[in-house]
């Protein structure tokens, strides 16, 4: 049974990536800007993926995320909730769009401080490229 209510420090989350400028496959890097919230917002959309199989993680992205974004998923960046907390941010479940959807919240108001927080997330994120057929 999927636990979509609580989120703990050892939970794993992922950020689906749609633009090639958000990651660098040559050195396995999710770029800091991929984690920054969009203009006028203070939250970054992620999904809780603790204990999910790889194929299911990609399926959630393909079926539930990509159609709403108007672009195919190219990759994703995985990290743990504790990494977010160590960057001075938090993760909060927000299950309206999907039972496993969450947001990274607590972004500082100062743009430069946001960049620093996003860079800390980048350093802990693991890049996974989407392979055709997955």
């Amino acid at each position: 049974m999927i636990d979509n209510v609580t989120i703990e420090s050892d939970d794993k989350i992922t950020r689906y990536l749609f633009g090639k400028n958000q990651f660098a496959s040559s050195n396995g890097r999710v770029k800091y800007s991929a984690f920054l919230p969009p203009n006028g917002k203070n939250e970054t959309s992620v999904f809780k993926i603790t204990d999910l199989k790889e194929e299911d993680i990609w399926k959630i992205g393909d079926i539930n995320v990509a159609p709403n974004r108007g672009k195919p998923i190219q990759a994703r960046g995985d990290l743990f909730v504790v990494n977010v907390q160590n960057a001075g941010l938090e993760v909060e479940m927000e299950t309206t769009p999907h039972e496993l959807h969450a947001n990274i919240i607590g972004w500082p108001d100062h743009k430069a401080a946001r960049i620093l927080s996003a860079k800390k997330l980048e350093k802990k994120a693991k890049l996974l490229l989407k392979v055709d057929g997955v």
Partner: protein
Amino acid sequence: MIGTTVIGRNPLNEEAINEYLALKQYGHLTQNTFATQLNKPFGTNDVFKTFLSYNRNWFAPQLVLDKLELVHNECASENWDGYDASPIEDIAFQEMRNLICALPSFISVPDVIPEPDGAIGLEWENDEGHSFIISLNGTNIINYAGMFGEDIETYGTEQFKGNIPKAILHNLKRLFEYNE
């Protein structure tokens, strides 16, 4: 005469680099462009790749300007990232062009990174994994952030009036351990 030797920081190779930088028509930097423009009978593949890697110690603005133009074109429309990102506006593009042309020569070629609020970032990283980022959005304000080791961080804001602010230069020198 440039052969297939590895380009290092010596007078012969600096001659080749200066020759390239003096070209009046840069165009899009490709291996063929590089070889054709220099008109040198050498192993272009090896030399071209070495030239690019050599730029870790030699900042060539045109390489970054080419990247900047590419990013601007790819992120010129709304939602370029799939998460409702704002487009990179011409004013941000032009401001970043001006800043790149004002950067000092002791740095390496940075990564050019579009940001979802329509700003453009330049990011440098050294061999120790330390990094420094500057971000512009067309309002003459530079937002910057740096990580120079465990718990050694900085961030702040400076005005851009055409010259690189001292705080930015200081952090670039810190990253590249540049001593005048």
